[in-house]
């Protein structure tokens, strides 16, 4: 296989994602774990760029790194006693490892050509095998995403339902956080 620059970038971003993810679960310092989570999310954003999905990449950085991971850090900083903690909190890692292996197996079977012989079909994006030429890459613009979210034949119903869910979650959070006397 020819080593293209995209391939090198892919390996770097994969290493960031996987290495960051591994460090999240192995780090004993919870603050460092959160920082590695950011690294992992950043690698994912890089993978989105390689998949020609710049909108997803920017949103990944803005929402996941810029907001969610920062809030995780914020919560950690507020629970100061957790910071010096160097022992693991519980003994559930074998179960977690088992769950991870099962998930990995399912993904391998369903999303890659490995599962062809067993399932007879797969949901992979028609990965090119040695004989084929690479499939045509379709570039989806932000405009198309927007149109899909706001047209009847697109995803307007799921989009609105999710918006409603998020709004109710927001109101719920305010109600929970509110002082009793104000209600």
């Amino acid at each position, binding site marked *: 296989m020819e080593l293209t*620059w995209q391939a090198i970038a892919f390996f770097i971003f994969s290493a960031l994602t996987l290495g960051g993810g591994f460090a999240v679960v192995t780090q004993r310092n919870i603050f*460092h774990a959160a920082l590695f989570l950011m690294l992992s999310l950043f690698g994912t954003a890089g993978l989105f760029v390689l998949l020609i999905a710049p*909108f997803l990449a920017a949103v990944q950085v803005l929402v996941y*790194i810029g907001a969610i991971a*920062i809030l995780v*850090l914020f919560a950690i*900083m507020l629970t100061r006693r957790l910071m010096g903690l160097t022992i693991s909190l519980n003994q559930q890692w074998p179960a977690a490892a088992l769950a991870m292996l099962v998930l990995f197996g399912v993904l391998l079977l369903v999303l890659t050509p490995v599962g062809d012989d067993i399932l007879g079909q797969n949901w992979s994006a028609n990965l090119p095998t040695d004989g084929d030429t690479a499939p045509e890459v379709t570039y989806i613009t932000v*405009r198309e995403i927007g149109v899909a979210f706001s047209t009847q034949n697109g995803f307007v119903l799921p989009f609105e339902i999710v918006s409603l869910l998020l709004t109710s979650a927001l109101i719920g959070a305010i109600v929970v956080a509110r002082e009793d006397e104000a209600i």
Partner: protein
Amino acid sequence: MVGIFEDLGFEAGLAAVLGNLVGVVVLATVFLLLPIFTIWVERKVAARFQNRIGPNRVGPYGILQSFPDVVKLLGKELILPRNVDKIPYLLSPIIMVAAVVLIVAVIPLAPTIIGTDLSIGALYFVSVGSLTTIAIVMAGWGSNNKYALLGAFRTVAQLISYEIPLVFSLLIPILLVGSLSMQTIVEFQDTYWIIFYVPTAAVIFLVSNIAEIGRAPFDLIEAESELIAGYMIEYSGMAFAMFYLAEFLHAFLVAVIFSVLFLGGWQGPLAQDVPVLGIAYLTIKSFIVYFAMLWVRMTLPRFRIDHLMAFNWKFLVPVSIVHVLVTAGIWSALPEPDLSGGWFARLGEEFPRMALNLVASVVIAVVSLRLLRQYAEQERQRLSEVTAMVEHKQYPLATTGQGAQSNVIVVGTGSGD
């Protein structure tokens, strides 16, 4: 640039990588050297606002003052206090500068000169800008210092809150243009600048950006008088200089982005044909905006943290949401004008759309400011009543001085009225 490397005999892929690399280094270096000048501008302007002379020893008008400062900072030791979290502590200034320099990539300097015309340029600006928060949190936590940590707390609250009006007000020019690409946004402003369509959005964008870079009156992150220097209290030498550099560069880049989004970027007479003129126009516009930011910085006192939050959540966010809805409504109701004629013809064709949006935007500003004023009057009324009650000793505030006569001790106030 890529062509030169291909001529030198490099393989096509390698030539592309090397050519882009050189372009990146040149562009980033130019912008990284800018603060040497803008720091002088800032010190001089600040001095004039405070009725001082400012730097005037090194070079004419003290213009070379920053060079000895840089040399001095380079010579200082980077002190590593005991018990700091080394990796976050040392990584933080680097991430800070990198996040700011990344913004440069999407700034259209001239019709043909742009780092990369991403189809999501405007969104890229916001998402890269949010990375500075991480650097500040890492510095605040890694320093192992309570003031630094307090600074980091405030940062998270402030930056995440002000991101919301920032994104909403950014959405408005995007709505008008119908594209997130910075170059398309500039090309749209060929007739009228976007600030003429939506001045209110422009003001909200500038205000929330000043908050996002944490400058006065939003400089609670640093707040010399309370937190000494907030998250960068423990830093010295070049690490401190990098935070400083990042802050100044970010402030200037915000002015540049504002000029690109609202003041027409490189647009100006003859800019289409002579790229250098485009760069000159953008520079002039950016420095005017930068001066306005300095003006605000030197004039207004610092906010209190609860005022800062209330101003964002109860004023900027609702106003920007209403503005987005109104602009979207008007824009989709109006027919697309015929923009095929000459420049003057297009000026006429575009005018009705512009005028209607301008009116709507001004109405939004006036109504929201009136509401704000009404609220302020109510608040003033309430406060004067409370003060009067306290003066006549009717208000159960405290019992200091006459504790023997009264045994009513109510600490919480304000719930009674």
